[in-house]
């Protein structure tokens, strides 16, 4: 979390002095963030329900077309989560919901052992069993194991054990994202009334870019002091690592940028908002031109150069937000305040 926002406090005083009619006519940055994020949570909830229905259809009459549809729906819902993953506070933090949707990184392959455990269970789980088990079985990575892991070559997804497990997970996932959307709406009044959330939202976006740079790309690519290791990448089983990164960037474009622009306009620093938008767009183009997976690119010199360009673009984006824009707004990162114990 961030310790001080000196310029903004001054600005808040200045705003208080302006006529109310002016203030109410102009949506504040938090108004814009809350509205945009609500749409993102709505999409996540809808996509998760489509995934749940798709899993049920496939299990009823498994065929290749329905399986393809299922894989697409899994990816769409996972991407919808990536888009709004930059909100790391509020209802997403409740009951570790963010972790429920995506337990990662998973250095011990807990996802694999949890799924294998349930596949061998005497009785098939329902959504309640999934809810009371660990975060490793609750989210998109567990479904990814069922859809893509090599071990599933020996067991058809249409087997009752696998299908029951998949449906229990997708039902739980749909429940969780529906609750998330509903709770975000209810959270609105508190979010809009509490000035500190401007800082919180910015800090959360900065952390998202740091995570992208260091953990989601830097570590699996071997840029963080240890050799490259594709198993550290998200979605290595499905080979969609880069697509997920792209979705997170798109989510910042639609969910975060408008509020940021309004904030910087208030602070009379619109050029910084434009610089951030331009860099974000450039990064998005770079991401969209890369193959979807990260692991194959570790062995391919040219593809790896493409990944490096993406990494550098994200690094610049992180610098713009975490240093230049944060500096302009007078933000100071906390140590214990962001990660105490």
């Amino acid at each position, binding site marked *: *979390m961030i*310790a*001080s926002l000196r310029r903004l406090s001054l600005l808040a005083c200045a705003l208080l002095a302006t006529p109310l009619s002016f203030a109410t006519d102009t949506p504040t940055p938090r108004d814009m963030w809350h509205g945009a994020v609500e749409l993102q949570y709505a999409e996540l909830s809808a996509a998760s329900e489509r995934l749940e229905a798709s899993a049920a259809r496939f299990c009823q009459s498994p065929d290749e077309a329905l399986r393809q549809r299922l894989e697409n729906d899994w990816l769409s819902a996972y991407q919808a989560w990536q888009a709004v993953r930059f909100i790391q*506070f*509020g*209802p997403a*933090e*409740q*009951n*570790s919901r963010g*972790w429920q949707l995506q*337990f990662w*990184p998973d*250095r*011990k392959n*807990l996802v694999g052992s949890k799924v294998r455990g349930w596949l061998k269970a005497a009785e098939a789980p329902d959504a309640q069993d999934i809810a009371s088990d*660990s*975060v*490793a079985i609750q989210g998109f990575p567990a479904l990814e194991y069922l859809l893509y892991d090599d071990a599933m070559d020996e067991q058809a997804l249409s087997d009752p054990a696998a299908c029951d497990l998949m449906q229990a997970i997708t039902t739980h996932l749909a429940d969780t994202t529906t609750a998330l959307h509903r709770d975000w709406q209810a*959270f609105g009044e*508190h979010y809009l009334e*509490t000035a*500190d959330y401007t800082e919180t939202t910015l800090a959360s976006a900065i952390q998202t870019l740091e995570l992208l740079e260091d953990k989601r790309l830097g570590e699996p690519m071997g840029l963080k002091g240890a050799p490259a290791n594709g198993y550290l990448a998200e979605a290595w089983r499905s080979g969609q690592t880069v697509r997920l990164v792209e979705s997170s960037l798109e989510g910042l474009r639609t969910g975060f940028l408008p509020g940021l622009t309004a904030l910087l306009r208030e602070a009379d620093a619109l050029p910084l908002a434009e610089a951030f938008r331009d860099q974000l767009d450039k990064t998005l183009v770079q991401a969209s031109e890369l193959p979807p997976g990260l692991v194959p690119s570790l062995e391919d010199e040219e593809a790896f150069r493409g990944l490096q360009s993406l990494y550098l673009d994200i690094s610049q984006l992180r610098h713009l937000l975490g240093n230049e824009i944060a500096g302009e707004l007078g933000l*100071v990162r*906390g*140590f*214990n*305040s962001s990660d*105490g*114990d």
Partner: protein
Amino acid sequence: MHRRQVLKAGLGSVAMALTPLSWALPAREEAAWLFSAVDDPSGAHYIAGVALDGQTRFMIEVPERCHGGCLRPDSRQAVLFARRPGTRMYVIDGDSRQLAHTIAAGKGYHFYGHGVFDLSGRYLYVTANRLEDSAGLVRVYDAANAYAHVRDMPLDGIGPHELKLMPDGDTLVIGLGGIQTHPDYGRVKLNLDTMAPALMLLDRHSGEILARHEPSHHQLSCRHLDVAADGAVIAGYQFEGPEWEIHPLTCRLDSDGHFSELTLDDELTASLNHYTASVAFSRVSGNVLVTAPRGNRVLLLDAAQGTLVASLALPDAAGARCDGNGGFLVSSGQGGLYRVTPDLAMPELLASLELRWDNHLT
């Protein structure tokens, strides 16, 4: 004024201001060290011993971020503990300014970042997690025998955190956080819906649980605490539930065993963002200081009355301990070391170091 000059001027006044402290700090008969876990700006982890002039210091690099610590009575040793889910504790010799021992929690266990000695300085009591069943334990170590592990005392609960010795010398008071974590899951909190935190009393000889007081909400994680000379305990909570709710963040256990929560006004409570870090009693007055890094604030409370004495802005307020003169030393995650006293309108900056102090001062 040039920034460097400001710093120098600040440090000059420190040395003068701190002279009386060096003899007045309890358990510090001679000028000695304040110990704290710190990170440097690059993110490397250290245990720092900082002299009371704020300038002289030594740093011991350690492989993991550390958290709290305790002094060994009648010795020049201090022990600092790896932060959850760390697995080591470090015995520092204040004379040689070196690491004297590194003790591992052992396979299947990790520490929570706090420990305390008995009055003789022989037995060390450390909060720990037994991973196979997530059992919260107090592990006992024998400092006279190279810190050999002696026995475990189960707490019938999850996530013990800070513990202190009561004035009777026989009873431990323990903040049971209630949060289940596992190293395989990193810092993911695994049981937020079923937490059962408590403020507990434990007989350190028999291991018998003497009292278990539950906070008013099951997601109020009881974490850090201090004990007054008369046996009154103040403990600080961290609320793990919905951030739009308001709950009390401190509780009190009177010397007669009566448990209650301190209710401050809602606006102040909300400004702490559900989080307290260190709790430190004054040894001179009935005041207790609580740091709230997420509120960038320290609270000074009248412990007996349960009322607010002062609420002072202090960025990323972290570690705290009494200064022996009725005031407190407070560290900041941003590098500052401050003095807070009831009669100062704002914290007095004693020194500013290029360090990130972790949540506790020893």
